[in-house]
């Protein structure tokens, strides 16, 4: 399985975020996306998910444009953005079960409880999410990674709001996914040590030409 990006260009307002961007990602590869604030990291991730329509270029999954694959592509995809995507009025378990069902799997309660245990929310399953701390809420969102069958993980700043233990846990979850032939794209300043597989780096540093003339 491959994700291939060809000559991608995204324009936000009258600003060209990036242009002529090409790369390829294979199984067991992890890509770190670097760049300052406003360099278009989030926009790139969102266009890889199909949430943002690029101005030019193509995004191919197994050689076919993701626009044509639609639901088939989204089945292979897991996206974790800045927002946790959990409902404050639901309990931890309800949130996790809902998210898993949406992804197309109806998981057993055992499996969900096990995931919560791994992510460090043991015995929290009946807590309303609104009563959790920021870090715990993030863990609820991250628990999706453990029950997901998706091949391609797209993670936008996944380490934000996590304590040291959780950072290490997430690092091992990501490394494990890459071990098992998964693909990961993430933006972070945190290094992810891998036991196998390959790390790629893509830098979206702005060149002078890309700056809008008013900002020069």
């Amino acid at each position: 399985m491959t994700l291939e990006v060809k000559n991608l260009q995204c324009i936000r307002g009258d600003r060209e975020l990036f242009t002529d961007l090409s790369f390829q990602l294979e199984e067991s590869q992890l890509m770190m996306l670097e760049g300052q604030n406003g360099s278009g990291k989030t926009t790139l991730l969102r266009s890889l998910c199909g949430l943002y329509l690029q101005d030019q270029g193509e995004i191919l999954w197994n050689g076919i444009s993701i626009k044509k694959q639609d639901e088939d592509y989204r089945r292979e995809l897991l996206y974790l953005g800045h927002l946790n995507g959990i409902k404050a009025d639901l309990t931890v378990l309800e949130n996790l079960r809902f998210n898993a069902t949406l992804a197309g799997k109806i998981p057993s309660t055992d499996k969900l409880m096990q995931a919560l245990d791994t992510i460090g929310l043991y015995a929290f399953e009946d807590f309303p999410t609104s009563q959790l701390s920021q870090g715990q809420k993030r863990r609820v969102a991250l628990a999706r990674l453990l029950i997901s069958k998706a091949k391609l993980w797209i993670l936008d700043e996944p380490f934000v709001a996590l304590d040291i233990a959780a950072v290490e846990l997430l690092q091992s979850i990501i490394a494990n996914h890459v071990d098992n032939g998964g693909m990961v794209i993430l933006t972070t300043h945190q290094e992810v040590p891998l036991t196998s597989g390959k790390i790629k780096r893509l830098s979206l540093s702005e060149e002078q030409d890309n700056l809008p003339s008013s900002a020069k």
Partner: protein
Amino acid sequence: MMSAFWVLLKRDLLLALRRRSEIFTVLFFFLIVISLFPLGVGSEDATLKKIAPGVVWIAALLASTLALDRLFANDYLDGTLEQLTLAPQSLSVMVFAKMIAHWLLTGLPLVLIAPLVGLFYHLPSNTIGVMMLVLLLGTPVLSMIGAIAAALTLGLRGGGVLVSLLVLPLYIPVLVYGAGAISASMVEGLSIQPYLLLLSAFMLLALIFSPWATAAALKISLE
């Protein structure tokens, strides 16, 4: 695909159950508007009978517009909407589930409270029946047209007022025939069947086009 539909419908109903007050605000808004008119227009029997059809529908339009705010706004703010659009399911189907949940929570209560309105406005019992029937046919159309506007104005400053501006003119056909049917039911010898047929036709059209248009609007708004 159906499992996503049911699970989302169940989730939205469960969420509303945990915040019951929100269901009642819409219902009480409807009742307050209804009871303001006799105070402003006068409470003679003939006047009440004359204005009742229009008043019921205008109150229903306003209440349904008021409720639109919540249809997608919460999901948008906590990121679950983003996850919905990324789920490997048809977004139109999921949007449809949300519309049904929304109608069950904000439209159906209006239908059920209609007999009380009939008492307030001295309406004969067969008219009350007609009123419930046309509300049952018309309020889903309101929810479905409104959903498009709610999706288009997602996350905008002053979204609530803007939604009313966009959506109220589009509600006119439902208002005309919904109120017309109630009026006709109070006149001897007039058939209400054509009204019901037209309202059913609107519902059918809304069923076909609205989930699709709302899904498209959501994708635009989330870009």
